[in-house]
Structure formats: C-alpha cells, structure tokens
C-alpha cells in the first residue's frame, strides 16, 4: 500500500520528516532505521504494539531521547532537537499519557505557567490571564473555565488543558500519546472533533495509539511500527481495521472473542448495600449491590475513579467496609483478610501487576507458586521445598500458557515483557481453579495478541462453570466478552444490562452519569 503520490497537492508539505532514525537501549534496538513523514494539516496515527517503539520515536521528536543516528526535518528545515525546549521552539508540543499539571492550581495558571502575564512589579494579571485563556480555548473549540482548579475537573477537561497548554506555547505540531486511554466514548468522540478542528486551523496532529477504531474514525494516515521497524504507512480510508491489526501484530488476529451463549448457574457472590471509604475518608462505594453467577462473565463498566478500586480492595480483603456484606459461597468475607477471600474461593488478577501481582525480583517459577506454595506437591521427602519439583511445575505452566521466552522458570519476572508477565499472573490464577475469578483491567497495557489470549482465558473459565467478574475501563473489552454488564457511576451500580440489548453509546452515557 504505497502512499498515494497523486494526493500530494501542490501546497501539501511535510510538517515532520524523520529519516533513518535508529535508537538502542543497551543491547535492545528500539528503533531501526525508521522513516516517518507527516503531512502538514493531517491527523497521522502511529500504530504499534507495546514496546514496538512508537513512543520512543515521538520522544526523540520531542527531544526527550537523543537519536543514535538519522535526520529530522521540521517544515522542510533540518534541525537537531536535543531537549524539549528546542522542540517547543520548533513548534512541537506533546501531551503525555500521564498529565503533567499542578493539581491545586487553576486551569489558567497551569496553561500560562512559565509564561505568566504580569502587571507592574511582577504581579499576576489574573483577569487578563483568564480572559486570554477563555478566548484562546474558544478559538480551537476547547472550551474550559479558566478559573476552575485542576483537581476539581474531569480527566477529559484536564486533557483539554494539556492540549491548550501545548497550543499556548505555540505548537503547530501536536503529539498525543495514547490520548483516549482515560476517556469515555463520548469524550473520545469529542476529542476526535477537537483534533479535526485543530487540523482545519492548520495544525498537524500525531496520535500514538493501539486502538484501531479511533484511527479509523480520526486519522488520514497511519504508520504501523513493529519491533522498531516501520511496516508501512497507509491511507486510512484504503484499509480495514483487520488490515491494520494484522500489520501491527504480524499475523491474523481475531478482533472479537469467539464465545458461545452463557449458561448462568447459581449465585456465587452476592454483594449487598456495600459502602466503602477511600483513604481520605470519602465514600467511594455507596450502597452498592450486585451478584455474580456461575458460568457467566459479569463486567463492571465505568470510568476510572468511580469506586472500582475500593470495591476490589473490599472484596480482596485489603480494605475495610463501612457497612453492607459480601457473601461468597455462603461465607461472609467483608472486613476479612486476603486469606479469607482466598478461602472463600476467589482469586484476583490485580490491575497493578508490578505492585500487587508479581514479585518482580522473584524468578518466574517462584511467581507461579506465589499463591500455591503451601501445597504438598512442591515439597520433597524431607518436607522441605523441592526446587526441582517447583521448576518442573513452572516449566510445564510456561509451556502450557505459552509464556516467553520458553523455559524461563529461573529468569526474574522483571526480565519478561508486560504481556508475558500478565500471562504468568493469568496462569497462576487460573491454575488454582477459583470459583470466582476477579479480573481488574486484565489487558491493560497489553498488545492485541496478548489481549486476545487473556480474553480467551477468561471465557474458558466461564465455560468451565466458574464465575468471572471483570472490571474494565475499556468499553470495547466489556462489550467483547461480558455476558452481563453492570455500569458503575459514583460508587453505585446504575444499570444492569444485557450486552445484546444495548450499545456502546447507551453505556457510555450511563458511565458519564446520564440516565438511560
């Protein structure tokens, strides 16, 4: 799929040209002779799996990393960008995945930070500042209230602030790193509209993403990167989602999970009127009730921060609840210890695999027995732990769950890639045959191939008559594998839906606090 040269009008210039860029970290070749040309006034997507090198490429453009070799031209001018300051001077702005805002300052203050407007004696001219920012926002269709404090506004608004900040510093080329990861579907639509408006006013937008749908909806061109190499640059209107996916992964992938009709059985877990406070003493879960049955995947859909974390911590015994009950297999487990949760038949895939899921300095084998080390099969005749038995077991699991590199039982968990680390957790959890498997963000940060794998594993659990409770911030995932959807908003379950009878728009509205 060669770039269509005829579409190059006389006035179409390249805003960014990166030629033959290479970059290594130690023995790892992160980028290998990469070429990227971005036309001025377009939305250009960078697609690739995790660790493919797309973020590295953009960090080089923004001056956060230095390239080993290659050349960068901005608006046709060769230039050497050594740090973000020089990048900003060249009209490049970047919005990072994790926002860099001062939480307790107002929107206007955040935007002008470092370029404040002052009156005599260096006093801040707040009025002028607020007026300027308001007008500036309206100009790009990014309406914000400059006087709001950052910590009081939604994630989507914070993102607008980040974009405005970049524009205020004179960005003509805007890099957005995974901009939709934290947004609801409506907010994603709004962001796409915003990007298109920016492009109409002459700006150039580069988005880094691994979400195919958004590329299809927003971008004109898409460059696919795999293992540090450019696979192709395509016109988005000439390809399908499936094309993009297989170029990204390097093989055919199923974008949706195949599964048969659920056969729900008896109730395994019932939560009634549960109220849980967070560390600051604010009620994050309020009178929440739900139940999960054998043989079904119940998904809790919602935007991050609506009580999911506290709910999980209450179920797993890490946090005390104020009132209400959690009954699993007839046992009360609220206000218990993690061991009580285990005894009741629950195992959990935690959303933070580095903090809670793995002991990164432990070997893969040790991590695989992290929850089952007490079983007698890991002991020798002397009653001591038998590392031979443990490593045999580990190597079997590594084979069965296709954890790579194969035979990595003695390698430290931190040496594995994110996807394989997650496979270790999935293998460990599934092997214990829990009655209820709680999976929080089980595919976060994983690439298409690993996502496919994890989702299939969850469906298999269900097919074996076990229950699965899926907590996900990604609507795609919820729609893909859930048998029943509960929408959580502001600590409450606001809807109990059948995925066959609803759509993403309706759920998105509920997630944002709207009514059905």
């Amino acid at each position, binding site marked *: 799929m060669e770039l269509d040269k005829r579409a190059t009008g006389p006035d179409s210039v390249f805003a960014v040209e990166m030629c033959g860029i290479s970059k290594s970290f130690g023995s790892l070749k992160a980028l290998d002779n990469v070429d990227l040309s971005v036309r001025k006034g377009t939305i250009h997507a960078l697609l690739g799996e995790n660790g493919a090198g797309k973020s590295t490429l953009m960090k080089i453009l923004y001056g956060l990393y230095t390239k080993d070799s290659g050349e960068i031209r901005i608006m046709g001018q060769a230039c050497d960008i050594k740090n973000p300051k020089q990048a900003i001077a060249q009209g490049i702005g970047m919005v990072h995945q994790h926002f860099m805002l001062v939480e307790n300052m107002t929107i206007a203050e955040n935007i002008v930070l470092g370029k404040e407007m002052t009156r005599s004696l260096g006093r801040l001219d707040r009025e002028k500042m607020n007026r300027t920012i308001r007008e500036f926002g309206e100009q790009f269709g990014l309406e914000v209230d400059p006087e709001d404090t950052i910590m009081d506004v939604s994630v989507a608004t914070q993102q607008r602030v980040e974009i405005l900040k970049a524009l205020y510093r004179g960005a003509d080329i805007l890099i957005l790193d995974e901009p939709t990861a934290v947004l609801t579907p409506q907010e994603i639509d709004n962001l796409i509209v915003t990007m298109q408006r920016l492009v109409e006013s002459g700006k150039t937008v580069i988005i880094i993403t691994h979400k195919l749908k958004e590329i299809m909806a927003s971008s004109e061109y898409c460059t696919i990167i795999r293992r540090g190499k450019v696979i192709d640059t395509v016109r988005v209107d000439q390809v399908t989602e499936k094309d993009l996916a297989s170029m990204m992964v390097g093989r055919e992938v199923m974008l949706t999970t195949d599964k048969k009709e659920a056969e729900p059985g008896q109730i395994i877990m019932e939560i009634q009127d549960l109220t849980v406070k967070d560390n600051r003493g604010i009620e994050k879960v309020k009178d929440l009730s739900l139940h999960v049955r054998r043989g079904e995947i119940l998904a809790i859909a919602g935007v991050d921060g609506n009580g999911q974390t506290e709910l999980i911590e209450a179920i797993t015994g890490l946090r005390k609840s104020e009132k209400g009950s959690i009954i699993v297999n007839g046992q009360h487990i609220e206000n218990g210890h993690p061991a009580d949760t285990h005894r009741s038949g629950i195992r959990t895939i935690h959303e933070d695999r580095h903090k809670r899921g793995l002991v990164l300095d*432990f070997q893969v084998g040790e991590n695989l027995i992290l929850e089952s*080390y007490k079983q007698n099969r890991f002991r020798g005749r002397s009653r001591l732990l038998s590392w031979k038995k443990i490593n045999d077991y580990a190597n079997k699991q590594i084979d069965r769950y296709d954890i790579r590199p194969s035979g990595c039982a003695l390698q430290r968990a931190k040496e594995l890639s994110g996807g394989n680390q997650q496979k270790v957790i999935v293998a460990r959890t599934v092997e214990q045959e829990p009655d209820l498997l709680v999976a929080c963000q089980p595919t976060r940060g994983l690439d298409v191939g690993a996502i496919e794998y994890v989702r299939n594993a969850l469906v298999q659990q269900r097919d074996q008559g076990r229950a699965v409770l899926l907590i996900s911030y990604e609507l795609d995932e919820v729609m893909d594998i859930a048998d029943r959807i509960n929408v959580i908003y502001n600590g409450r379950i606001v809807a109990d839906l059948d995925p066959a009878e609803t759509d993403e728009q309706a759920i998105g509205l509920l997630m944002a606090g709207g009514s059905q």
Partner: protein
Amino acid sequence: MRHFLIRALKKPFTAVLVAILIGFLVGAVTLAVGGYDPGRGYGLLVTGIFSSTRRTMQVLVNAVPIIMTGLAVSFAVRTGMFNIGADGQFILGQVTGAVIGYYVPLPPILHPIFILLCAFAIGGLYAAFAAFLKNRFGIHEVISTIMLNWIAYYFMNFVVNMKSVKVPGSQHSPEILDTAKITFFSREFRTTAEGEALIARQPWLESLIRTDAGYAILVMIAVTLLLWVVLKYTRIGFELRAVGYNYYAAEFAAMPVKRNALLSMFISGGTAALGGAMLVMSTSYFISMLGATEGYGWDGISVALIAGSHPIGCVFAGLLYSGLKLGGTEIQSRMGAPTEIINIMIGVLVLCIAFAPALPRLAERLERKE
C-alpha cells in the same frame, strides 16, 4: 578477553572482588601518604594472619560475633526489614550470658544450652518489639531499633552497676561459672604442665588450646546453615523473601505479612543475641561498664553488606573483616602505623560494594560499544 570481562562484570561476586581491590589500593595510598612502606605493611598484614595456625584460628574466633550480627542483619534484610538494632540485641545477649552464667547454676552441657535459648528468646523478643511498633503504629524499624540500641546499652551499664552484681573494686560483673564456658580447653589449661606437654606432643592442638576457640564456632556454622535452609527451602522462608522483595504482592497473595515481620525480626534479633552470649561464654566471661558500645552490631551491618545479605557469604565476609582487623594490629605494633588505616580500608571496601549495582551497567556499556 572482552567477552570474558563483560561476563565477569555481570557476576555479583566480581563486585566484591573489585571492592576489595580498591580498598587495598586506597589503604596503600594512605600508608604511603603517612610515610609508611605499603609493601611492608601488607606483608605484615598477611603474616599477621597466616604466620601461625594459632593466629589464623584467632581470626576465626574473633569473627564469630560479627558473623552472628552479620547473619542477623542479612536475614532481616532478605525479609524486608532493616535491623539497625543488632547492636542492642547483641548487648542483651551479653547481659543474658553474664547473668545466667553466674546466677543460675546448672550442670555443664545444660548450662550453655540454657543460656543460648534464653539469649535467643530475649534478643528475639527485643527485636520483634520493633516489628510490633511497625505493624501497630507504622513506626519505621530503623528509627525504633536505633533507639532500642541505646536502651540496651544503658541497661547493660545499669545491670553491671547494681550493687548485687558489680564485683567490689572493679567495673565489671562476676566471672561466669566454669559450667557456662564453651571454649574447647579452659584458659588455665594453657599454662599448666599438662597443657604444655599436650602441645609438645600434638602441635596441631596449639591453635585450639592457646586461643578462645570453642563450640561457638560450631554453633555459628550451624546457625548459618540453618538460616540458609530456612530462607531457601521452607515455606516460611519463601513467604519472608516474598515480603522482603514486594510487601504488597505478598499481602495480596494472602501471606500473613504482619506476622512475618514479627517472625523475621525475632529470628534476626535472636541470632544477634546468640553472638553476644557466646562472646561472654567464650572470651570475655563477664560484662563491664562501657563508655560506648563495642559496635559488634554495627560491624554486622558492614559484614552483611559485603556478603550481599547471603548467610553463607556472611561467614567469608566476617572472616575477611576480622582478618583485616587482626592484621591491622600487627601493622600498628610492628610499624607504628595507626590501625585507623585498616578502618579506612574497610570503610572504602563497604563503600565500593555499595557501588556494586553499577558494574552490570558498566558491562552493558562495554557491550554496546562493540
């Protein structure tokens, strides 16, 4: 050659060797600056350690207390607790040894065993108290164990100073009963005709008769192996290591993390106290009023650092440490060079070991250049 270098740099043991080498270099420079011949100094250091089996045995005897505190610190570190309080636990072990060794008359073999059990329990509980404070009130163990060190130190002086304890006209407690001593041969035996005759007949026994060599060495070896087995081959050890590396994952895996903190500190404190009790039972025989602590616990931290917190490594690190100290006295007595030069060497050595994580990175750099 280069490949070999790169591979060697990635091994943790290389770091220790490099550190020792740098330590010796700095020591040599210090000697030279002070106007002493480094070559002669190191010659004396080596002969100080190896000129006779008796001297080498003395290195081993001196190493036992710091190996014990080294083991104590290492065990706690492996399980995620930084036990700065080995000094205080060691002191309580000394007090236990001196008090029970004198006031509780028991038959020979039973007496030392009883003292060791009591010392382990008392030192263990003292250290576990710090873990309790952490579990219950979130007080960091580094703060609490440092404070507990002072309490133990003043407690020892208080005990020695009691009317009923202090030997009149002296600054120390009464000598422990013979039943509580654990050297292979008694001190008196060295000078008896019978002893002289035995040494003449069996020269190899000299190193055992003319030093404080005793069962403490065997206990130390046994404790080392036991701690290693506990960490590597038991379920408790597995839990302790998991907590040490990642508290949150261990908690999430339903391990009893708070109980394990108590247990880990109990074992650590008990080990340090064993060292203190054995020092009294084999060398000092009583405890004295002190103007400052003898610092066995602090030396233990250095030993643990050099050993990379591995129990078996502690034995070798302790021997190195004690060998340098003993050889250092030789440099002082024969050359007049201050022993502080040896302390500088040890300091540099520990400092260099702290840089150890940089070596694998250096290796990566070399690799990239290829």
